[in-house]
Structures are given as structure tokens and as C-alpha cells.
């Protein structure tokens, strides 16, 4: 009443204007502008010594033209683009293709005739995912019984044509193996962080190691 509410509102907005910790946009992708103080802090110097050491950069910062790389920190479970796929682990069972709600995974295999004792190994001819239609629900990852397919962790796969969004076997193989820990507790327990530069080997991605012969005999032969 009597304009008290209006004045209170003005106070709230002023508080948000002044307090720097109430900033909304704190991460500016891909880079952010930085002032002299920020630059000096980044190189652990005081601003004056920074100005003397790197005058060009310091002047640029003072003019508001300097920028440094910036990126939103993501959780390791982030479901992102470019699936991490390990051909070594894949058996071509096509569970992922069957489980995909949109049917965008295509798998073509043929029997190889090798390792017939363990039940024939299948050779993958085609494995491609149409990322243009993928909705990143992660059901294919959930379905994979051999932990061969993992969600990726990036989001920078924008392309100019939809055709380029179909990622085939070759690209899946070449892409850096930074699987998201979504639905992969074993990777999470290892402390693997897909946002760092580290890469996960195929032998470490599984929820269990390859069983040794003794274990297999106990399980299968004695029955």
C-alpha cells in the first residue's frame, strides 16, 4: 500500500544489479570477455606487474577486447552427441536398433565363421546412427548388453546438411572415446570424467571383465 510495494520492487532489482553473485549468465560459450583484473588473476599476478609483463594483452583487456575460452561445466552423466562406440565390444546383436524408439540405428552383419565354440562371431558391415533424428533418450545405451555403445559427451556436432548428421561406423570408430557415465555405473565408479581430455579404452568400459576360462567352465561346462 502507499507505494511501499513499488519501492520494495525497486530495491530488489537494485540488489540484483549490484551483487555480482546474482549473475545469470556466468558462462559464455565459446569465449568470454575478460578485464585486466581477471587476466591478472588468471596468471596469478597483481594487475600492475601483469601490465608490465604483457602490455599488449593488458591494453586489450582494458579496452574490453580480450577474451578467454569459456565453457559450461557439464556433469559426467550429460547425454550428448557422437556416441562412444567400441567395435571391440560390439557383437552386432542389434539390441540398440531394436530398442530405439525412432529406429534410427541401422546394423548389418554377417557371420564370420570364427570362434564357433563361443557361438559364432558376427562381423559388422554397417553401423550407422542418424543423429538428425536422434532425441538422446539413451534407450539404446540402456539396451546394450555388452557395454559397447555409450552416450557421448559433446554438443558441438552441428552440420550444414542433414546427410552429414548420419554417423557411420568409420566415424564412430574415429571419434574420441569419451563416454558419458549415463547408465554406466562402472565408469562412474572409476571416476572417469568425460569432460576432461582423458580417453577410455574399450577394455575399461565394460561392467565386468572378460571371464577367465576357469570361471567359464564352472558356469557352463559343469552344468
Amino acid at each position, binding site marked *: 500500500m502507499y507505494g511501499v510495494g513499488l519501492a520494495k520492487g525497486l530495491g530488489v532489482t537494485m540488489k540484483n544489479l549490484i551483487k555480482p553473485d546474482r549473475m545469470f549468465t556466468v558462462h559464455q560459450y565459446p569465449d568470454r570477455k575478460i578485464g585486466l583484473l581477471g587476466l591478472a588473476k588468471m596468471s596469478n599476478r597483481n594487475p600492475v606487474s601483469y601490465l608490465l609483463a604483457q602490455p599488449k594483452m593488458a591494453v586489450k583487456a582494458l579496452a574490453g577486447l580480450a577474451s578467454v575460452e569459456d565453457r559450461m561445466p557439464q556433469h559426467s552423466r550429460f547425454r550428448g552427441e557422437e556416441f562412444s562406440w567400441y567395435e571391440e565390444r560390439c557383437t552386432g546383436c542389434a539390441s540398440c536398433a531394436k530398442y530405439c524408439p525412432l529406429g534410427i540405428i*541401422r546394423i548389418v552383419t554377417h557371420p564370420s565363421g570364427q570362434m564357433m565354440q563361443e557361438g559364432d562371431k558376427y562381423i559388422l558391415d554397417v553401423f550407422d546412427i*542418424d543423429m538428425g533424428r536422434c532425441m538422446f533418450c539413451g534407450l539404446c545405451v540402456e539396451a546394450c548388453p555388452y557395454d559397447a555403445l555409450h552416450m557421448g559427451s559433446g554438443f558441438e556436432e552441428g552440420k550444414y546438411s*542433414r*546427410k552429414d*548428421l*548420419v554417423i557411420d561406423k568409420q566415424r564412430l570408430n574415429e571419434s574420441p572415446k569419451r563416454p558419458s557415465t549415463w547408465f554406466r555405473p562402472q565408469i562412474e565408479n572409476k571416476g572417469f570424467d568425460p569432460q576432461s581430455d582423458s580417453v577410455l579404452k574399450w577394455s575399461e568400459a565394460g561392467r565386468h571383465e572378460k571371464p577367465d576360462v576357469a570361471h567359464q567352465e564352472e558356469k557352463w561346462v559343469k552344468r
Partner: protein
Amino acid sequence: MIANSMTKVLSGIEMGNMISDAIPGSVLDSNETDVWIGKDDLLRVSRYLRDEKQTDFSFLTSITAIDYIEYFELVYHLLSMRRNSSLIIKSRCYGRDEELSMPSLVEVWKGADYQEREVWDLMGIRFVDHPNLKRILLWEGFDGHPLRKDYLGQDEVTEDYRE
């Protein structure tokens, strides 16, 4: 703290007996959960269910239709907010042609308005005496009713970007 209670799901058999006492011949069948009402008596039964003190179904939760190939079944979920009890009444509608019709319940529960329009739009069941029975989700002039089991869909052109 007040003790919580679940919404009481009324027994279809008991309610069926009660309805048929009030409006003889209206209840076709009933089981533990549902009551089947003849489509000609639906309006009278729903008005009875709303106004009768013992039932007091002032709230129409949802209307659905299901295509069982031989017939369409309409499902009405009723709720009494004062008594915290619920009832499911169903009604069957035979035939497949465009002239399928059911009585509209808009004058009993206004909440039936959009839901009946949706059923007409997607299932193709015409509601007699509905004040504004037009398609609601699809556009006027759409061919067919998509939620019917015999709806084949229009020719869909999906480009395959792989080739």
C-alpha cells in the same frame, strides 16, 4: 496431522444396482470396477449421478474412447470431490461409419466440452447436441479419424538422409 485416505473406488456391481433401481433398464452390465450403461440412457444416468446426494459425482475426470474393432467403447471417469470416491462408467457404440453417435454430456458437465470434441476429432464419434462439435486438434477437412484402428494414415514421405 490429518489421516490420509485414498480415493475410494466404488464397486461397479453395487453402483450398477443402485443406478438400475433409479433408472430401470439403463445398466447393461457391471463388474468390480466398471458399469456399462446403454447409450440411450447415458444422459439421464449422468444427470442422476451428478445430482443424487448419495453419489454426488460433480467432477468428470476424463472421457476416452477405445476402438475395439466391433464396437467403440466410451469410458467416463467420474469423481465425487465431497465424498472422495470415483466410478468408471462405460458405454458402447456399435458400427463403423461416420454416423456413429453418442449423447453429449456437456449440459451435465461443462468439462466434457473439449474432451468430447477431441473424441470426435480423433475417433469419429459424433456427440448429439454438443454446442460446438468441431475438430479440435486437427484441422477442418482432415480426412479420417486417426485413432481408429483402421486408419491407415496419409502417404508419408520420409526422406532417408543416409543415401
